[in-house]
């Protein structure tokens, strides 16, 4: 295969006006994608949007309903099964049910397109298997029965199997499912390194938006039968786009961290939380879990508490960015406090930039309102719990 030299000119994968689907009616149409060698493209989108169908089509398990798929500059439809298997490796979410096969047996199956008539591995095949198993961290349990391994170990073995197919294009459907957080991070780190070092194009679907944002060079959203939202993570992962993609409230998603929050309690604030500098995050979450609507202030929009309050608080009083809290902010906060039953003051002391927040505590005391240091103290002392 002259993949190495071709890949520097031609994109590893080029999808031109492709329509996909299981029946004659397309599920997604007019898909245009280009993935270059060494690049990681991540597909995101709600369940049933067609991510897996697209991956299956690229892998050659489904025929595109329209358009052309080119792999390393060659139309996929004209490639022999063997050449295609040497250029494209795919891993989907179905797990093989095996009996009496070792972990290594499973990985060795990836050498299929390189071995002879009886599938006996040569020295080169053995070396590649070992290298891929070491890279994915499953070499230590190579002789274990695959049927008795944990889901995470199996996933590593299956990814090793795909890697030792030595593909130019690697297709992964939910590669991090079944893995714990640590293993997810390791796996994505490994795949990124693998893509760069071996100049392989990776196209993967991910459910975890946070991971997608961190691992992808390019992100493609599949939604409502189209794949027209494409770009770098910074372009794609903005609040309104992600929220509309999954049909969420815009503030449920934090685009700086790529994290989601549970839905806020939907009614007028009952407690006012004075926070800032990260002192309020725990308090916000405790109140949110107890389904108590709260207001927060006076916060800076790009402070950690400010960002979290945007997702969780019923109302937030913001100060101007990078400016000290001023009297105007305090007045607005006082209006909120007036409608609350209690105040929680999270910071132990106030810094210069939010010194005025001390006035809010005084104001609450003046109104005869109880002031608590933590959400727990408030919840414990709550007068009427239902």
């Amino acid at each position, binding site marked *: 295969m002259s993949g190495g030299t071709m890949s520097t000119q031609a994109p590893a994968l080029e999808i031109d006006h492709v329509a996909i689907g299981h029946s004659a009616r397309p599920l997604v149409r007019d898909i245009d994608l280009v993935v270059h060698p060494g690049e990681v493209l991540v597909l995101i989108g709600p369940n049933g949007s067609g991510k897996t169908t697209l991956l299956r089509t690229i892998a050659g*398990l489904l025929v595109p309903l329209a358009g052309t798929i080119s792999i390393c500059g060659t139309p996929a439809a004209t490639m022999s099964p063997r050449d295609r298997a040497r250029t494209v490796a795919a891993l989907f979410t179905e797990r*093989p049910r095996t009996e*009496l*096969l070792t972990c290594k047996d*499973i990985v060795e*199956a990836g050498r*299929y397109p390189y071995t002879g*008539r009886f599938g006996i591995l040569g020295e080169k095949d053995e070396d590649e298997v*070992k290298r891929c198993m070491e890279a994915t961290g499953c070499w230590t349990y190579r*002789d274990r029965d695959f049927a008795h391994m944990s889901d995470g170990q199996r996933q590593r073995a299956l990814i090793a199997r795909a890697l030792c197919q030595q593909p130019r294009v690697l297709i992964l459907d939910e590669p991090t499912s079944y893995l714990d957080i640590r293993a997810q991070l390791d796996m994505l780190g490994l795949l990124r390194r693998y893509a760069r070092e071996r100049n392989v194009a990776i196209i993967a679907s991910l459910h975890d938006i946070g991971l997608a944002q961190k691992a992808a060079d390019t992100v493609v959203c599949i939604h409502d039968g189209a794949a027209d939202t494409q770009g770098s993570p910074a372009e794609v992962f903005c609040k309104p786009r992600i929220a509309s993609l999954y049909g969420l409230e815009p503030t449920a998603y934090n685009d700086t961290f790529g994290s989601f929050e549970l839905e806020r309690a939907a009614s007028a604030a009952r407690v006012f939380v004075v926070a800032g500098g990260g002192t309020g995050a725990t308090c916000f979450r405790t109140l949110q879990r107890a389904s108590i609507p709260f207001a927060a202030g006076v916060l800076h929009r790009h402070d950690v508490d400010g960002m979290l309050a945007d997702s969780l608080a019923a109302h937030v009083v913001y100060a101007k960015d990078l400016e000290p809290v001023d009297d105007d902010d305090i007045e607005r906060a006082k209006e909120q406090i007036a409608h609350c039953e209690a105040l929680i003051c999270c910071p132990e002391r106030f810094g210069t930039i939010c010194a005025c927040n001390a006035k809010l505590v005084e104001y609450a005391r003046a109104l005869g309102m109880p002031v608590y240091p933590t959400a727990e103290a408030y919840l414990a002392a709550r007068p009427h719990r239902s």
Partner: protein
Amino acid sequence: MDRLRQHSSASARTRRAARTAIVDGALACALVALVCLSLCVGSVGTSPTEVVGLILQGPADSTASRIIWEIRLPRVASAVLLGGALSLSGYLLQTFFANPIADPFVLGISSGARLAVALVMIVVLGAQGVMGPWMAVAAALAGSLAAMGFVLAIARRVRTQSMLIVAGVMVGYLCSAATNFLIAFADDQSIVNLQNWSQGSFSGARWTDVAIIAVFVAASFAIVLALSKRLGAYQLGEGHARSVGVNVIGLRLAIVLMSSLLSACVVAFAGPVSFVGIAAPHIAKLALGSSRPLLVTPTSFLAGAVFCCGCDLIARTLFSPVELSVSAVTAVFGAPIVIALMLRKRSFR
């Protein structure tokens, strides 16, 4: 365990090769011993030295020579070949359905073949004709494929493995019922023929039959061995097989044809024989500690041959001179293995 794990992959490979050699060697020894025993034991006892002498001497006109050359040798040869064939057929079906207790008998494929052979036999004998071995194989193959088609049609609609087995058993019952009707309405001469054959037995094998069996079984064995790389990929799931370039539809067709042909061969010459197709491949896999098709194919052939040879020996000697049906004996040994398999597989639903 830890020390085992520290071995390099090369030694893991040699260990596996050594284990395969030991298992195959042991099975081959057992087979030779059983064949010798089968040749010596019978209503007329013959000592091993006499047997060797008679075989080396070639077919002669003496009674002893006739017993060896015309009765015992062809019988033991057909038991060995058909036992291997049954085992391979079962192994193919287990791979095809990813179901550890699939085999031609359980899935009703043997019964379908039996029905077709019975039908042809009655028609041919009714017309005062003679039913040749080729015709029997052709009829059995047609019956196997028809039953297989029926099972496949059901398999498309049922999701669970146990439902597939139930469906196969039902197909088997239907075919058996139809065969019994045929026997009831057939004339006397046919009944004698049918009754003997339809119980499952290796008796009455002739050299011409053995030659035909050998051709079919050898060819099938070679084809299955050649398919082993693809079977290995198919074992890990259809999606994987296709993504490494296997023509899955072609492979499935080949599996169906080979397993039907092998079980048709058995039914045509020995009638339906139960459970060998499940027990023998399973013994082979356990003994090898692996289910890689390239290793399992020869071993399960040997295991099937040993199993059938042993069961046939028991069938004809246990209550001698009364001969049991070989299917009864294979069931006694095979059914417990199937039950154990069902209990052990937690995933079997």
